[in-house]
């Protein structure tokens, strides 16, 4: 049965974000703040970068604030000025991306000011943005979220989170189904999914961890991966991405949300995360790690797969 989700706290969070953004811009703590703002369509939102304290009024937080804004802090987004300290609005899932980037030496903690949002979830999609947040419309990642309160942010709006209704964990369900398949059935499943890919690279462009200045899949001298949107090249592309993200992906699920062809990309990433947890007892969290599991060697690493 569909149940509503209490997001009455978002109004106070909005006020709190505005006040804080105004304060840190006015007193020179930061040179810019990246947050969310309204757009023409009711319920829709878009990222905004403000530098003027008076523009703080443009910021807000709602169930439509889906974007993981952390992507704008990476070196691949050259348009966003990286001079001075930057304030950024993050949900718990987004904050884990900051943590990952700190561990990969892509960010310095002293260069960012984290405005953490206590979060009761966001919508799964903005295709029809004027949608009420309930147990049906909520993003799949929010169903099984354990990070509603951001940990280690510089500022968190003093808002108590409302209790959440019980929801089924959709990713674990789907992964269990995939695991129950035979290898050839699984192959067919992913083959069909990847055949839908049109190589728009929205998944890569919104990913905080796809910060390579030259993606291996864009190389043509020599070509490393077939670039044309055909089944073989599509498969290569998605496998390259899954492997590159293993042990790094924080599950913000932006890739899956933005895919205009509805490819369940986060399902693949969640499965990889489960493997990382099982093999290396490693998972994305709020603690900065110097080295990811696939960048380090430990004598106790499981070697049973080598036969």
């Amino acid at each position: 049965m569909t149940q509503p989700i209490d997001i009455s706290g978002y109004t106070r969070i909005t006020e709190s974000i505005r006040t804080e953004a105004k304060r840190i811009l006015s007193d020179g703590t930061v040179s810019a703040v990246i947050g969310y703002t309204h757009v023409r369509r009711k319920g829709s939102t878009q990222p905004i970068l403000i530098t003027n304290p008076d523009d703080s009024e443009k910021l807000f937080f709602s169930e439509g604030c889906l974007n993981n804004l952390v992507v704008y802090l990476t070196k691949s987004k050259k348009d966003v000025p990286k001079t001075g300290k930057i304030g950024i609005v993050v949900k718990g899932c987004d904050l884990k991306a900051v943590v990952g980037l700190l561990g990969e030496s892509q960010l310095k903690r002293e260069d960012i000011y984290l405005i953490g949002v206590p979060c009761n979830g966001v919508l799964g999609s903005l295709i029809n943005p004027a949608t009420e947040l309930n147990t049906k419309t909520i993003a799949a990642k929010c169903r099984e979220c354990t990070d509603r309160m951001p940990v280690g942010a510089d500022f968190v709006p003093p808002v108590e989170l409302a209790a959440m209704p019980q929801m089924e964990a959709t990713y674990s369900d789907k992964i269990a189904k995939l695991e129950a398949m035979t290898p050839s059935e699984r192959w067919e499943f992913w083959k069909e999914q990847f055949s839908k890919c049109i190589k728009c690279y929205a998944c890569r462009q919104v990913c905080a961890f796809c910060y390579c200045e030259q993606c291996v899949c864009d190389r043509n001298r020599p070509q490393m991966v077939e670039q044309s949107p055909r089944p073989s090249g599509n498969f290569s592309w998605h496998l390259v991405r899954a492997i590159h993200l293993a042990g790094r992906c924080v599950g913000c699920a932006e890739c899956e949300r933005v895919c205009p062809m509805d490819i369940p990309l986060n399902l693949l990433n969640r499965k990889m995360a489960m493997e990382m947890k099982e093999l290396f007892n490693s998972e994305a969290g709020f603690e900065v790690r110097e080295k990811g599991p696939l960048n380090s060697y430990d004598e106790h690493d499981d070697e049973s797969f080598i036969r």
Partner: protein
Amino acid sequence: MQKQITEANLRLLIDSLLLKGQRVVGPRQSGAMVLYEPLSSASDLVFNEQPRRSAKEAFFPICEDLLEYRKNGQQIDLEDIEPSRFPETVLIGVRPCDAAAMPVLDSVFSWDYKDQFYLERRSRTIIIGLACTSADDACFCTAVGLSPGDSKGSDLMFSHLVNGGFLVESHTDKGALFLESWKDRFTEPDGSKTLPLAQPEATPFDLKKIKGWLDDHFEDPAWDSIATRCVGCGACAFVCPACHCFDIIDEGTEKSGKRRKFWDACGFSKFTNHASGHNPRDLQPKRYRNRIMHKFKYYDDKFGQNLCTGCGRCIRVCPVGIDIAGILEEIEKK
């Protein structure tokens, strides 16, 4: 010429076409999405949902082979793909915002270079449009000079009748010929009313005024505030009925392979990357500016048309909520 057809007769007609071996493409369920895809039976056709991608791919596919090469010792054998082998196609259930893009694209694909891959498909296809009876808040065809019942680009235009079935209007010789060859399936109009057209909440833009601003504002701070948020994917261009940029690449091995043509997008950072490494559009706002300029200025300068039919797809799929209708509104106010 006006005719009428019941939904049952339309389905029979489609099945007859399919039985004859005719290729029929129309909106159908494809996984969880609706896409324009070849129908395998008349029951596949869905009327009530705008396909996720536009109908341009019937003429300009996502990816197609241009030629094949094989190396034999010192000799290289080339084999062309023969565009005259493309099948005759009935493209049915086409949204007015998709059909309207076809005459616009004809200008560029038959301009200084005649693109036989596009043109041959075009000449072998009849477009049967279907008037829209519902719109969402991303739809804005009425703002760019079109309407949910516009017949631009359609050979035949279908409109839902109040009591089921469709009113059919022929707009080209191709359309009239089709009605003639299947006259048993159609009847004379009995005066039944058509369903009210969709009413997108968009008021017409002053496109001349917008172009006037674009003419003088290649450099303007507005581009930064509009498009610094653009993450540089190709989603908008790929779902767009009018975007038509493509890349050509040779794929294969030293011994054999294919030359392929596939969709490209001006949002990609490598779109204008020179072999030297220099990129004249080095930042995202410059790339997004090109999207707007191409649609509402350059194409107008060259062909007197706009590259936007207000289908709203780019607004729905943009990962960062960039709203082209909102941007045009903003420019119009300047």
